[in-house]
């Protein structure tokens, strides 16, 4: 087994190699640990390489598989976790923020524990925008590890806020990673880095042990080379967890084969490409041509509601409460981005009645989104309106109101699943993406649609030339 055999190889194929014992979990871990050590700093992608834990898990996997106890497709597969997931064993969990850079928990987040039970091998805690971007950052340099650097260009951003999860998978430092999304933090790095990224339905994956940014918006999900890999990972981390009361008792079993021969029915929100860069719009139009071969594409509309304002108000109010101690103590002065040191003070200006109005409108938003989605298999749209921001530039953000993102506002505000996959390249040779958003709990359907798209295109086989 050489690095060429395994780097940029999807999880499903790595799993076949492990199961047939062509690939050794120990050798696999050593290959990716070496890449994390050597290349991680180039992309500011890594907070901690978890070498000792990885090798212990890899040795256990190798012994179990040799003894005929194969656990499933993640057994022996290396991965990285966004550094907002608690890890035991003295491994720091920093939340990307200087005030917490030495903090250690004595337990594993449920997602980490479930991946361990699936036999996956934790190789790294991955960099992220400080506090998952909840303090109002406007620039890529908003983490104590430095700005996440995009493997497609040393001058472009990878995030955010799961910046290291995006960089690490795109650079072949790990086969998959776990990220989190409150609004955009999985789909954005996946799109920026030319990856697949899956935002599960709210409540599908336990957030126990994950940093809370917004209790009613936070989701955990995978970034990987393909939509198929995202499905494999989701099955391992999904499920009800008594430690997270928002999780639901709806077992998720990934259907990686079906539905065979299905003709899909796709919807496109009227005006969804307004404000998109020209190349993003062109690539989306080309994607629609592919989707028309897979089924039908029709224009749909949502009623005129202040979607961005609804989700933004919820996000700001909950983030201000979640970090009340840090904000009121003045501890935010220790954050990296200058604007993160004061912007959150403004959120004392959110009135309780306005927050509740946003929560009431969220109910309307969820019903309207479901009404539009009910006859469809998925709404499709560009994953992001632009390619990745430049490192020295300002990040356009719907969260701050400097861009519009109806799909993100509705998808996150209503807790709906979405998967992004690469669909071409735009300005400066940077990736663009296509997203599929479905009804609540329809991850299998949107993954099937994304897989069908990826079976007709080869963007997922392109990798950064210098990685």
């Amino acid at each position, binding site marked *: 087994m050489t690095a060429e055999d395994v780097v940029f190889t999807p999880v499903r194929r790595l799993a076949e190699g492990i199961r047939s014992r062509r690939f050794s979990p120990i050798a696999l871990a050593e290959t990716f640990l070496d890449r994390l050590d050597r290349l991680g700093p180039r992309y500011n992608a890594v907070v901690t390489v978890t070498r000792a834990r990885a090798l212990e898990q890899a040795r256990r996997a190798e012994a179990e598989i040799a003894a005929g106890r194969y656990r499933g497709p993640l057994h022996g597969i290396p991965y990285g976790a966004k550094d907002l997931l608690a890890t035991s064993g003295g491994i720091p969990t920093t939340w990307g923020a200087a005030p917490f850079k030495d903090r250690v928990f004595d337990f594993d987040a449920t997602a980490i524990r479930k991946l361990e039970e699936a036999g996956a091998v934790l190789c790294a805690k991955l960099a992220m925008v400080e506090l998952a971007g909840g303090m109002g950052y406007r620039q890529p340099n908003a983490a104590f590890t430095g700005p996440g650097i995009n493997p497609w260009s040393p001058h472009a951003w990878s995030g955010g806020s799961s910046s290291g999860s995006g960089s690490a998978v795109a650079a072949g430092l790990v086969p998959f990673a776990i990220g989190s999304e409150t609004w955009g933090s999985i789909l954005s790095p996946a799109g920026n880095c030319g990856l697949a990224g899956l935002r599960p339905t709210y409540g599908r994956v336990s957030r126990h042990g994950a940093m809370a940014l917004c209790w009613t918006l936070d989701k955990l999900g995978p970034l990987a080379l393909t939509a198929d890999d995202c499905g494999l990972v989701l099955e391992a981390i999904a499920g009800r967890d008594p430690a997270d009361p928002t999780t639901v008792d709806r077992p998720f079993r990934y259907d990686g084969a079906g539905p065979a021969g299905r003709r899909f029915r796709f919807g496109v929100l009227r005006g969804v490409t307004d404000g998109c860069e020209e190349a993003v719009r062109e690539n989306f139009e080309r994607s629609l041509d592919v989707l028309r071969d897979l089924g039908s594409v029709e224009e749909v509309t949502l009623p005129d509601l202040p979607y961005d304002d609804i989700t933004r108000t919820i996000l700001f109010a909950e983030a201000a409460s979640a970090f009340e101690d840090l904000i009121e103590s003045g501890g935010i002065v220790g954050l990296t981005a200058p604007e993160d040191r*004061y*912007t959150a*003070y403004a*959120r004392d200006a959110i009135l309780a009645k306005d927050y509740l*109005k946003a929560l*009431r*409108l*969220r109910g309307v938003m*969820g019903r309207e989104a479901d009404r539009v989605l009910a006859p469809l298999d998925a709404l499709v749209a560009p994953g992001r309106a632009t390619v990745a921001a430049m490192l020295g530039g300002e990040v356009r953000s719907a969260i701050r*109101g400097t861009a519009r993102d109806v799909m993100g506002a509705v998808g996150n505000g209503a807790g709906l699943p979405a998967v992004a996959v690469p669909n071409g390249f735009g300005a400066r040779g940077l990736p663009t993406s296509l997203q599929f958003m479905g009804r609540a709990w329809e991850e299998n359907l949107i993954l099937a649609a994304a897989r069908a798209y990826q079976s007709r295109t080869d963007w997922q086989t392109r990798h950064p030339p210098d990685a």
Partner: protein
Amino acid sequence: MSEPEAVRAEVDALFALVRERYGGRLDAEQLAGVRTAIVGIVQAARALRAVRLTNADEPGQPFAPYRADS
């Protein structure tokens, strides 16, 4: 960003509150940034208030009573 009179009055009132709480730790540039952020918050709030709801429109996140043994 243009600021209609009604928005400005609300922003000024809320900014005064925030400045009272935190102004001592902020310089002029940071205070200007806080005020800009409050303008965005007020504009979002006004957009929310402009939508009429009925008495039956409840918050999307229901409260559940807690009982340790259930």
